[in-house]
C-alpha cells in the first residue's frame, strides 16, 4: 500500500485530476508528446470526454512542475529538423499512480474518475479498482435512499412531474450500480481465469 502524504496528493487537486491521473498511466505505458497523449486519451475514454490537445499540454506542464513527468526536446519522426517535447515518467510516477488508484474521489466526478482509472489500470491495480467500484456502488445506493418516496398518488401535474423526476434519478442510479457491479464481475472473472 502506498503512503499518501499531503505532498504526494497535492497534484490531485482540481477537476482535471482524472485526466492528470490517466496521463500518468499513459506515460508509464510509454512516453509521448502532447498530441500523441491526447489521441491515446481520446481513444481510451471515447466520447465521454472531449479531450482538448491544449488542455493535455497544460496538464503535462503541471505534472512536470510537480515532478511526476519530465520533458525532453526531441526531433519529430516525420521531420527530423523540427523538434517537439516528449514527456517521460519519473521515478515518482508509479507511486503517484498507485496513490491515485487508492484515493476515493469526491461524489461528482467519481464515475468519470473511475472510468479514467479503468482506462489505464495495471493488473496489480485490480484490488484498488474493486474497492473503488464497490465504494461507488454504495455511494449510488446511498443517493437512491436519499430520494424521498412517492406517496403513490400523483393527483396533480406538479406531483406527476415530481414522480417523473424521481424516476429519472432512480433510472440513472440503477444504470450506475449495474455498471459498477458488471465491472466488478468482469474483473473478478478475469482474475479467476488468470489464477
Amino acid at each position, binding site marked *: 500500500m502506498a503512503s499518501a502524504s499531503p505532498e504526494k496528493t497535492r497534484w490531485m487537486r482540481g477537476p482535471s485530476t482524472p485526466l492528470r491521473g490517466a496521463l500518468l498511466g499513459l506515460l508509464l505505458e510509454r512516453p509521448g508528446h502532447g498530441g500523441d497523449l491526447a489521441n491515446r486519451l481520446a481513444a481510451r475514454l471515447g466520447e465521454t470526454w472531449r479531450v482538448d490537445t491544449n488542455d493535455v499540454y497544460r496538464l503535462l506542464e503541471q505534472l512536470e512542475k510537480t515532478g511526476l513527468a519530465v520533458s525532453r526536446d526531441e526531433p519529430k519522426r516525420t521531420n527530423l529538423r523540427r523538434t517537439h517535447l516528449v514527456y517521460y515518467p519519473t521515478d515518482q510516477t508509479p507511486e503517484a499512480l498507485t496513490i491515485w488508484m487508492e484515493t476515493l474521489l469526491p461524489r461528482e466526478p467519481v464515475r468519470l474518475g473511475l472510468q479514467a482509472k479503468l482506462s489505464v489500470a495495471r493488473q496489480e491495480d485490480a484490488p484498488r479498482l474493486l474497492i473503488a467500484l464497490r465504494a461507488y456502488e454504495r455511494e449510488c445506493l446511498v443517493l437512491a435512499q436519499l430520494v424521498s418516496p412517492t406517496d403513490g398518488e400523483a393527483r396533480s401535474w406538479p406531483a406527476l412531474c415530481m414522480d417523473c423526476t424521481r424516476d429519472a434519478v432512480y433510472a440513472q442510479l440503477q444504470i450506475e450500480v449495474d455498471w459498477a457491479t458488471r465491472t466488478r464481475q468482469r474483473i*473478478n472473472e478475469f482474475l479467476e481465469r488468470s489464477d
Partner: protein
Amino acid sequence: MTPLLSFLNVSKRHLDGGRDRVVLDHATLDIDAGMSVGVYGARGSGKSTLLRLAAGITLPDAGTVRFDGRDTASMTAGERSRLLRGAIAFMSAEDWRANPGESVVDHVATSLGSEGLTMRQARQRALRALDAVGVSASGAQDLAASLSVTARTRVMLARALAREPRLLILDEPALMPSLGDRDRFYALLRSAARERNMSLLLASEEMSALQGVGVLMSIADGELCSTEERGTVVRLPGRRQAGAEQSG
C-alpha cells in the same frame, strides 16, 4: 437487542450446468423489528436465493441464518413450515394460484387454514385484511381467478397481512403494467408495514420499487453491498483474505 432476522457469513452454492456457482457469498446482515430492507439486483444475481434463505425455504451451505435468535438450520422441517405460515410471510407475483369459482374473501380466508380459526372467523379476518389494502366488501365477493394483475397483487398482500406476520418477504411482488398502480402498491405496502411495525425484506430488479426502504442493498455475483455497510471486504477469486478493508 436481538435482530428479528440475521445472516452471519451466509454462503449458498448451486450447480449450474455441472459448474459449482456461488450464489451468495459470505452475506452478513441484520433486520430489526419494524425495519425495511430493499435488495436491488439483476435477474440471476442471487436475490431470490437470499429471500428463500431468509424465509427458511432453503438452508445455507455455510454460515447461520437466525430468525428471532433461532438458527433456521436447527429447526425441523415442520417448524420451518410453521414459521413460514406464521411469523414470516413470503410473497411473490409468480405464486398466484386461485381455485375456480373461489371468491376473493374465500381465497384469503382459506389461506388461514392452519391458524385454528373457524371459517367465519377466518372470513372476518380476511375481510379486515382486504379492507386494509383497499379491496371493498363487494370487491371481496369477486371471483379470485378473474382478477386483474393489479387487483391480484393487492389480494396477495391481504393474504400475507391476514397472517399478521412479523416479517414480510416480497420477491418482485408488483409486476404491474401501470406505473401509477405500481407506485400505489408500494406506498400501500410501506404504510401497512409502518402501521403494524412489521419488517420488510423486499427484492426487485427495479431500484425505484425499493424507494422509502430504511436500508438499501444491491446484490451481484452473490455479493451484497449495503448503505449500512461499515466495512467492505473485497474478496479476490482464489484468495481467502486477499482483500482490503475500507471504512464506509
